[in-house]
């Protein structure tokens, strides 16, 4: 009979459906937004988060009890959830909002996620999500969620080691001048940085299996959360255009151009 002292980990991975990172976005003529009739995918940093959860299970095996993904989005966001399920998540929650709804802001998203976590009967020990979404580049949701829950946080993770027995994790983070290592107690919010892992492509058998995995549908009202943003986006414009200056034919010409611009070598 296995001693039941160890708490099994329940991992929650919030993900976002965003414009695909390779798309060249175009600002709409009305300057209210960008053309969204383009390819969408899972936010790359959230893919890394899903991958990390799956790798934790591969490493810790039975000690990871569940991997649940959650998204706030229109009906099409269900496809993004299916991708995560195909990568190895067990079940999903879809907080459905209409296509026409204004994009929620990090504070609203964090409140919705808090509500989800508080409703999880088995509790949540680890939340892993991307450090930023490549559409708004806000980079706040993880920190806000940790703040609302008063949990530990470790942002920009490039390495994660979890010890379920000790109920703690060691996280290496990418910071401005290099790397920092933290030790945090669970429950913990981790935000992922680029080099944490390289996400897998879901195999066809796993894609088929994912179709049968459960997706629970909820509305913001079910969670008693208002997703109306406080901050108003009043305009979206193109950045100042940068036009290329043309090529030169030799190093000498390059040096001349640099000199023209006032760039000269330093005296050694």
């Amino acid at each position, binding site marked *: 009979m296995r001693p039941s002292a160890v708490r099994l980990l329940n991992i929650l991975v919030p993900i976002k459906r965003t*414009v695909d990172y*390779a798309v*060249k976005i175009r600002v709409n003529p009305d300057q209210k937004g960008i053309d969204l009739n383009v390819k969408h995918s899972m936010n790359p940093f959230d893919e890394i988060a899903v991958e990390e959860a799956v790798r934790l299970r591969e490493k810790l095996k039975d000690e990871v009890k569940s991997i649940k993904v959650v998204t706030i989005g229109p009906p099409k966001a269900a496809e993004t959830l299916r991708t995560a399920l195909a990568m190895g998540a067990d079940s999903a929650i879809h907080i459905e909002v209409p296509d026409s709804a204004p994009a929620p802001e*990090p*504070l609203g998203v964090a409140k919705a996620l808090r509500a989800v976590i508080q409703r999880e009967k088995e509790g949540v020990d680890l939340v892993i999500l991307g*450090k*930023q979404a*490549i559409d708004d*580049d806000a*980079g*706040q949701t993880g*920190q*806000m*969620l*940790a*703040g*609302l829950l*008063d949990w*530990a*946080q*470790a*942002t*920009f993770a*490039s390495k994660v080691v979890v010890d379920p027995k000790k109920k703690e994790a060691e996280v290496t983070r*990418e910071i*401005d001048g*290099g790397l*920092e*290592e*933290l*030790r*945090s*107690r669970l429950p913990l919010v981790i935000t992922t940085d*680029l*080099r944490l892992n390289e996400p897998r492509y879901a195999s066809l058998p796993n894609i088929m299996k994912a179709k049968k995995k459960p997706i629970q549908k909820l509305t913001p009202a079910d969670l008693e959360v208002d997703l109306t943003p406080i*901050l*108003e*986006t*009043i305009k*979206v*414009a193109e*950045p100042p255009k*940068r036009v*290329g*200056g*043309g*090529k*030169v*034919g030799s*190093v*000498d*010409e*390059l*040096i001349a*151009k*640099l000199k023209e*611009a006032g*760039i000269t*070598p330093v005296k*050694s």
Partner: protein
Amino acid sequence: MLRLRRVVAVSPLYRGYATATGPHALVLLEHRAGVIDSGSLSALSAAQQLGGQVTGLVLGAPEEVKDVVQSAKRLKGLTSVLHSSSQLYTHIIPEVVSPLLEKLLSDNTLYTHVVSAHSSSAKSILPRVAARLDLPAVSDITSLEHDNASNTTTFTRPIYAGNAIATVRAPGSTRVKFFTVRSTAFKASVVDESVQAEEKAVDPVPVADPPTQHVRTDLTKSDRPDLGSASRVVSGGRALKNAETFKGTLEPLADVLGAAIGASRAAVDAGYADNSLQVGQTGKVVAPELYLAIGISGAIQHLAGMKDSKLIAAINKDPEAPIFQVADVGLVADLYEAVPELVEKLKQQA
């Protein structure tokens, strides 16, 4: 003995609106080894543009804070310096500093705005504090405008890796407006010998049994100018084969130009350079006088980190490389021939 107190009923809506005194910004002044981060100096400039008072906040271990406060007092634009020292603040851990910030920003606070650089440390702290106060935050702003009459602050900020600029407005009802500042968009505030801001010590708010402990910090040591604030950057991409070649090829060039060294994501992923050198949407955003891209193709995400540079020059073997679309001067050449030649000729001119 009961003292009669006249209670003035203040409607919650009223508290959000401007008083005759205008905004009062609290600016996080980050520091290392006694020196204030240049990003914080840019945040200070941004705070000044709000048009009101500006208080700097210095947190740290007692030995550090003393010297930093003395430098801070002479900064142009600062009206006062608030500081709090504790061994607990030796390494800035968001869970540990948040309680102090929440206390400073509680309901009757005199601060209207909280400002910091968009540094890895500050952007880990500000959103946490904002959320605990039930307030939103604006990240990585490139400009701001404050209207005192309505108490609204309007910001611009890059979205979609800088391929669009959003104008975002924080309404008057937002009682404290949090924002982080893109340092390349605001000129760093300078020391003004005639300035002597007043200073005030604030008791640290102890956190019994913090859930997170600092284990270690490994900073890349370099004699070079700091990438984030250098006026010249020489940056390398995946074409540089390996770490040795990366260093061997770029260092002489960076030396003769007095430049910092940067790297593309591909180069960092492949292990040629440290992650702290990555320039891009999710790495460092730089805007130097000169950005010299060597063997970098110019992916959208890389451009996001350097397209505000004054002069962009590129050397690449591929004439179709996207970098040439933004470079002011481009040279199609084998970098292993062009760079040594460039270094030689520049040295002769020095």
